[in-house]
Each structure stands twice: as C-alpha cells, then as structure tokens.
C-alpha cells in the first residue's frame, strides 16, 4: 500500500524516481510490482531484499540505496581467494568460522545499518554482522564452509555496498582511536569527585574532637590524589619535560610545576597533621584540563588527513601471463581461454617491471606503463582535478593514478608501483615543521612564557616579604602563589575554545586536522588557489552545442541516446538534457565500447560518440582547446557536437572581493593559459594568475612566498597539489564528498562550502579574541587568588571555591561567545551566500 502511494506521488513530479537509489528513471520499463527503477542493478537489489522480507530498508529512509547503474565486474574480488590477501582482512579464523572486517564507503544512513546487520537473512552462511558507523566498516562472522570471504565480499557488492579494499590493508596497520586520554580523564574524574566529598567535612568544620576521623579523611584524600598525580597528569609532565629538554618553556611547564607543588605541600601538611592540603583543587584542575584536551583532540574517524598512496590503490591487480614459461610465478587464480594469456590476481607490491596488467573499466592504473591494447579513456580527476577523461592511443604512456573509464585495456608496466610518478608526487612532500618546535610557537605559548615569568616574580617578592616579616610563613605563601597562579585557566580557555570552534566548523563541513590549524588560518596573509577542480566544479561541466539547429525531437533523441551509455560524458550530457526532454523508444541499438552508439529511434538512424566513430572520413581532427566532445550524426548526415569544458563555481567573484582586503590572492594552475582572459574577468585584477605550473613548481612558488615572510594558505584538490599543500602553512583540500580520498592536508573543506572561506577565516580570527578575553577573565580570578596567597591566607576552602568557579565561568564564556559568533559569522553568510 505504502509503496503504491509513494510511487504515485513521485510520478506527479517531472521524472519518476528510482525506488532504490532515488535517481530519475530513464524510462518506465524497469518495474517490479508498483516500484520503478533506474536500472536493472537497482531492480535486482530490490528483488533480493523483497524476497527476504527486508523491505524495511526502504521504509526507514526514502531512496536509501546506491545506484547500481555501473555493474561491478564479476571476478573483481577473485583475489580474495588467495590466502595472503584474505589474511589482510581476516582477524580470526578457527575450524568453523572466520571473522573479517570490510570498509564500506557507501554506508550513510540507518537503512544501511538495518540491512547490513540483517545479512544473515540473505545468506545463512553469515553468522552475524555488526556495523561501526563512525568508521564505515562492517564486521562479519561467517561460516567459511558455507560462504567464502570472496563470496561475502560479493554478497555485500550485490546489495550495493561494495567493499573498498586497498593496498593499505596489506600493511595491516589500522589506526585505533587513542583511548588513553579518556582513561586518564575517567580516573581523574573519579578521584576529583571522591576527594571533594571527603573534603566537605573539613570545609563545614568537622568537630575537632574527632582527630582520628579527620586524619582518616585526609589520608584517604592523599591516597586518591596519587593516581591523579602519577597517571592522569602524566601528559603534562611529559610535555613539560620535552619542552625543557629543548630549552623551551611551554605552557605545560608551569602546570606540571603547580600540580607537583600542590601535591607535595598537601602531602607534607597531611603527614605533619597541619592541614588538609589542596588535593581537591589539584585533581579538579587536572580533570578540567584533560576534559578540554579530549574535546580538542576529537578526531573524525571517517576522515583521514594523512593518506598515503597505499590507501588509494587497490590491493590486487590482474596480471596477464603469456604462458611461454612453464612455471607460473604466483598462484594461479583463473585460467583464460586455452590459447590466450592467463589472468593472475597479484598483490600490488608484487607487480614487477615488464608485467602486463589487465585494467578493467572503472579500475585504477596502479603503475606507470605503456598502453598495449584497447582504447584508454583515463579519468585523472584525482591527480589533476580535471573532470573530463583523457584519451590515450596505443603505445602512449599512462601514468598511475588515473581511472580507466572505457573498456578493458592492457598495460605494460615499466616502473614499479613504489617508483611511479604518482607515488613520487606523494612522497616528495616535505615534512611539515611540527607546531611544538621552538621556531614556531603558538601565541598561547608566547603568552604563557610571560605569564610564567610574572608568576615567578610574584612568588619571589612574596617570599622576600615574608622572609622579612614572618619567616615561618614563607614556604606557605610561595607554594600558595604557585598553586593559585597555575595557568590552567589559560589552557582551559584555549582548549575549550578550540574544541568548540573545531566542532562548529565541522558542522559547517570544514574539517580541521587539529587545533593549531585554527591559529595558522587566522594568521594567513596570502591565499593560493588551484584552478582545476578547486575553482572549477568537477561535477557539472559546461556543455555547448556546436552545429546545426536542433529540433525538439532531435534533442529528445539525443537525450535518449545519452541515457543509454555509462560513459562519463554521456552521463553529463544526459543530466544536461534531461530537464527539457522526454525519452523515446529505441527500436535497435548497438554499442561499440570506446566508440559510441548506433541506434534506430523513430525510424531514423543515429550515430553518437567519438569523432572517429561518427566521422571516420574526417581523419585529421582539429583538437579542440578543451578536448572532450560528443559527435552526433543522423541518417549519415553530420549534425554537430557537444563540447565540454570546466565550469567555474558560482560565487567566485564574491569570494575574491571578500578576501582581497585582508589577503593577497594567487591562482596557480597546471593548465595552459587559454582561459586567462575569462578567469581574470571573473576574479578581477587584484588576483595574480599563473599558468603552466608543474606540481614541483607549485611547491617552489609557495616556498618562495614563505621566504618573503608570507603565511600561505593553499587551497587545492588534486594530487598535483599535494606538495604545495604540504609546503604551505595551511593546506586545505577540497573534496566533493568528505569521505573521498584527499591528498594529505591540514583541513578538508567540502567543495560547495568554498565560497564561505572568508567567513571561516574570520571565525578563526575571532576565536583568538575569545581566548584572549577568557584569559583576561582568568587573570582576574588569579589576582583574587594571589591576593589571598601572598597574604598567606589561602585556605583550602577558598581554593576549592575559586578553582571550579573560574573553570566553569571560563567554560561558559568560551562556549557562549563561540556559539554566538558562529551564528553571526557563519549563519549570516549562509543566507547571503545562497
């Protein structure tokens, strides 16, 4: 019932939407019951789920599926039959069952969760499955007598969740989130709460007639303070020590000193029976500071800022073995036809020079090689940002990193994977100077240095004063100064502010690697943009028709043809024509892989595809500046061609006018300068445009700017920017979808948020002001505390009130002001930007 209603409602829209994936259906022929589908793949998934009673999948969310229009090759996961490669995914195996974890990038909603955890209903061989949504993985326990690892991967693929198995899995090192900080926080919280309770009797004036009880409470507090000192506060001691070793007084040094002094003084007081010490303040400080650090170090597990090439490449490739030698080197996986070469799945690191690789449609080229068979149509969007595929002829060199979008090709490897051009690009990045080095101290550390000096001065003068007036109270006063003046408030204000800023920006799809990046962004003086893929939109190319005037019927016919092909250009054209077209009935249809389509529509014969296919007679082609085009002929008469070119993102002029008052702008492009005039007109004269820059020259240009004292922010997307992203002070990678692979960077910005970059920069700048403001507030508290301390009148009760009061008010100030700011800066922009 429900399904029927949904369908009818969808039909009133311009196009019928696929029940599975929500993409518009090219025609209404692919149906099952009352549901329409965009392709056979989607219908198959629906039928499989329907038969197994799993249609709740479609009720939890509308169109939860992933389009199955591009079918997955049948033996894609054949390599999982090999022990060595299977071991990379398997975590446990005994006589009856195997446990394995798959990374499924397609996981995105609760429907996915439902379906993947009900896998055992699709295949009884699966014993149980568990999704880790944050990491986008599914854990499978299966009976390997009934279903193999390969079949499990194929089952996941069949329902639309194709596992992503990369070369990195072979290394076997998956990073685990660091839980030690949380353990420390838990212990500190426990001790803090209990010491607080134990201190209450003292504060409320426990009866002096019970000395035994009072001593018991004090000793218990001392005991509870031990784990805080020895375990929870460890990070502060380590950091202070490593700072001191490199002769640098960082912010953790006075904190470590304060914690240590508080503990020693408290211990001495308890032992001598003189007082109760400040154990509650000490553990409270440690607890709040750890909480701030946990908040600030929150990581995004679905994102990765440090990807290397191994995460990008597949685990195995198909090597063709021409059976001249008797003994095959590797284990044989499947044998081809008797006369032809054998196809052997080989782990990528084992590929050698001289091997011939078979690259199927949609697969990556893992090593540099020479094209020996087939038509290469390579999508280098990850390397260069260019969205339109490039054609390569036989005998030409194919560089690693591209994705073959046409039919299968063969490739003779002449450089091993680790030496390929792509891998070298990746490896050439210089190590970024770590933010903790003395050379580039953050302003927090600079502040804390002055702070520490002042504290020591106050402590010294207090000591001097009491030495003259009442020497017995010197020790008292000095320790009290050191305890009270602990810069924990400063640290709290920065960690909590940064943590909150990171969280707010992540909500706006701007993900920073760590808190230091905020400061670097705030200090930017020069912004360098990459052109292709960054300023241009990878998704929708600009499409122009060149040729005869087309009638409506012609356009409809072309749209029908375009909808039949999975070629990227055709899909772009289909999306371009779809809103104004209806799809027609095709009476006969031939597809030439790598060439085009030959079809009969409405009694007319259409030829559609590459220039060589449509107009073989015009052998000498005039290469268009942009390169990519679809040629169309009807009944042997050439009509014209659709030309594709990069489309600049909307709002660039506003982006530039918002940025120019504060920063200098440069556009660095690897392309030739044929678009200079158009770009200069769009961006204005204030922007420096540089063309024909190789990846290496880009890096050098950034270094050149830095030598002039500029703080450079690099905004780029492709791997050709990887070196520049690493060299710059802040490297921002642009990604259409943040789960995609990005070169290693300091921040990841979702592509459609690029025009809000000025707002983000302003936001980071005001973050600094929030920290300074809350620091001033904490200084006020410190002055009050110091006033008590130098008078040698700091009772544990005063400390116990002052400490949480200052911490909590700082928390409120940072949270409140950063949230108000985000509303002012980010949301306001949001409305005017759209």
């Amino acid at each position, binding site marked *: 019932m429900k399904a029927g209603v949904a369908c009818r409602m969808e039909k009133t829209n311009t196009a019928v939407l696929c029940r599975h994936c929500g993409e518009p259906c090219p025609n209404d022929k692919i149906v099952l019951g009352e549901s329409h589908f965009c392709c056979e793949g989607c219908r198959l998934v629906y039928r499989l789920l329907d038969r197994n009673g799993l249609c*709740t999948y479609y009720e939890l969310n509308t169109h939860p599926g992933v389009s199955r229009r591009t079918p997955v090759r049948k033996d894609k996961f054949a390599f999982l039959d090999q022990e060595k490669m299977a071991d990379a995914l398997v*975590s*446990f195996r005994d006589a009856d*069952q195997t*446990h394995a974890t798959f990374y499924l990038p397609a996981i995105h909603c*609760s429907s996915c*969760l*439902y379906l993947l*955890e*009900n896998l*055992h209903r699709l295949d009884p061989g699966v*014993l*149980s*499955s*568990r*999704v*880790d*949504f*944050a*990491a986008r993985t599914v*854990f499978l*326990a299966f009976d390997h007598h009934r279903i193999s690892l390969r079949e499990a991967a194929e089952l996941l693929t069949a329902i639309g969740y194709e596992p992503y198995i990369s070369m990195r899995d072979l290394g076997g090192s998956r990073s685990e*989130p660091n*839980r030690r900080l*949380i*353990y420390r926080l*838990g*212990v500190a919280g*426990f001790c803090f*709460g*209990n010491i607080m309770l*134990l201190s209450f009797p003292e504060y409320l004036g426990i009866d002096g007639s*019970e000395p*035994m*009880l009072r001593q*018991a*409470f004090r000793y*218990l507090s001392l005991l509870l303070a031990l784990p805080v000192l020895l375990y929870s506060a460890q990070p502060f001691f380590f950091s202070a020590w490593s700072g001191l070793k490199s002769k640098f007084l960082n912010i953790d040094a006075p904190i470590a000193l304060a914690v240590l002094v508080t503990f020693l003084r408290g211990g001495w007081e308890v032992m001598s029976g003189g007082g109760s010490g400040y154990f509650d303040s000490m553990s409270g400080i440690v607890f709040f500071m750890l909480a701030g650090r946990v908040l600030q170090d929150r990581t995004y*597990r679905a994102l990765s800022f440090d990807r290397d090439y191994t995460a990008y490449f597949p685990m195995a490739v198909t090597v063709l073995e021409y059976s001249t030698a008797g003994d095959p080197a590797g284990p044989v996986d499947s044998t081809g036809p008797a006369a032809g070469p054998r196809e052997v799945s080989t782990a990528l690191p084992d590929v050698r020079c001289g091997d011939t690789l078979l690259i199927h449609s949609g697969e990556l080229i893992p090593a540099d090689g020479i094209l020996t068979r087939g038509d290469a149509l390579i999508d280098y969007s990850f390397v260069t940002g260019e969205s339109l595929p490039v054609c390569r002829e036989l005998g030409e060199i194919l560089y690693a990193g591209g994705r073959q979008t046409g039919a299968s090709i063969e490739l003779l490897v002449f450089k091993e994977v680790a030496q390929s051009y792509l891998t070298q690009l990746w490896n050439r990045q210089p190590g970024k100077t770590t933010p903790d080095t003395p050379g580039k101290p953050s302003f927090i550390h600079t502040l804390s240095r002055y702070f520490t000096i002042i504290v020591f001065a106050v402590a010294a003068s207090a000591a001097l004063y009491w030495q003259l007036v009442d020497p017995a109270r010197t020790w008292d006063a000095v320790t009290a100064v050191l305890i009270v003046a602990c810069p924990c408030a400063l640290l709290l204000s920065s960690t909590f502010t940064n943590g909150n800023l990171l969280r707010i920006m992540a909500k706006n799809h701007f993900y920073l690697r760590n808190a230091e990046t905020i400061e670097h962004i705030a200090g930017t003086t020069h912004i360098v943009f990459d052109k292709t893929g960054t300023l241009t939109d990878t998704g929708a190319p600009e499409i122009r028709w060149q040729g005869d005037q087309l009638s409506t019927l012609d356009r409809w016919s072309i749209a029908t043809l375009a909808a039949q092909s999975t070629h990227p250009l055709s899909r772009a054209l289909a999306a371009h024509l779809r809103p104004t077209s209806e799809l027609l009935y095709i009476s006969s249809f031939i597809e030439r892989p790598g060439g085009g389509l030959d079809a009969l529509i409405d009694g007319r014969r259409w030829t559609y595809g590459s220039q060589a296919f449509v107009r073989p007679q015009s052998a000498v082609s005039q290469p268009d500046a942009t390169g990519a085009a679809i040629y169309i002929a009807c009944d042997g008469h050439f009509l014209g061609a659709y030309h594709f070119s990069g489309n600049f993102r909307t709002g660039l002029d506003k982006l530039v006018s918002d940025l120019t008052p504060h920063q200098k702008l440069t556009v660095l492009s690897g392309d030739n300068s044929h678009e200079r005039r158009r770009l200069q007109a769009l961006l204005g004269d204030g922007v420096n445009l540089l063309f024909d820059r190789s990846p290496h020259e880009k890096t050098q240009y950034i270094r050149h700017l830095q030598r002039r004292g500029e703080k450079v922010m690099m905004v780029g997307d492709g791997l050709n920017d990887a070196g520049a992203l690493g060299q710059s002070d802040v490297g921002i990678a642009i990604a259409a979808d943040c789960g995609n692979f990005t070169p290693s960077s300091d921040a990841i910005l979702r592509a459609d948020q690029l025009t809000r970059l000025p707002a983000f920069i302003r936001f980071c700048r005001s973050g600094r002001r929030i920290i300074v403001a809350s620091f001033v507030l904490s200084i006020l508290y410190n002055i009050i505390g110091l006033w008590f301390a130098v008078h040698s009148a700091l009772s544990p009760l005063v400390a116990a009130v002052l400490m949480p009061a200052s911490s909590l008010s700082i928390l409120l100030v940072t949270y409140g002001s950063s949230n108000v700011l985000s509303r002012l800066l980010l949301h306001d922009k949001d409305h005017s930007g759209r």
Partner: protein
Amino acid sequence: MSVIILLLLASLSVALIFLGAFLWSVGDRQYDDDYSPPRRILFDDQPSLPDNDHAKLTSK
C-alpha cells in the same frame, strides 16, 4: 565512629566498581560509534544473533 569509616570504605569500593565499569566500557569500544546503537534499538525486528558467543567474539 568507626562505622563512618566502614561506610566510607564501602561507598568508595562501590564507586571503584563504577570506575572499573567505565574504563571497561571505553575499552570495549562502546563509545566509538555513537550513531548505530540508538538506531539499532528502534528496528522492529531486532537483528537476531544466531549464536550468542559470536557476538562476544566480535569485541575481540
């Protein structure tokens, strides 16, 4: 008055049990994924685990 000390020790050991439970639950990866558990519980037909000790093994 020793009864107060006795009570104190009792309450502390209860608190210790809770601390232990917290540390265990962090180590058990219960806080790693904050998306699935609140949704998993809403599914009408709970994904049934055919054999309970498999579930135990999932946490390694």
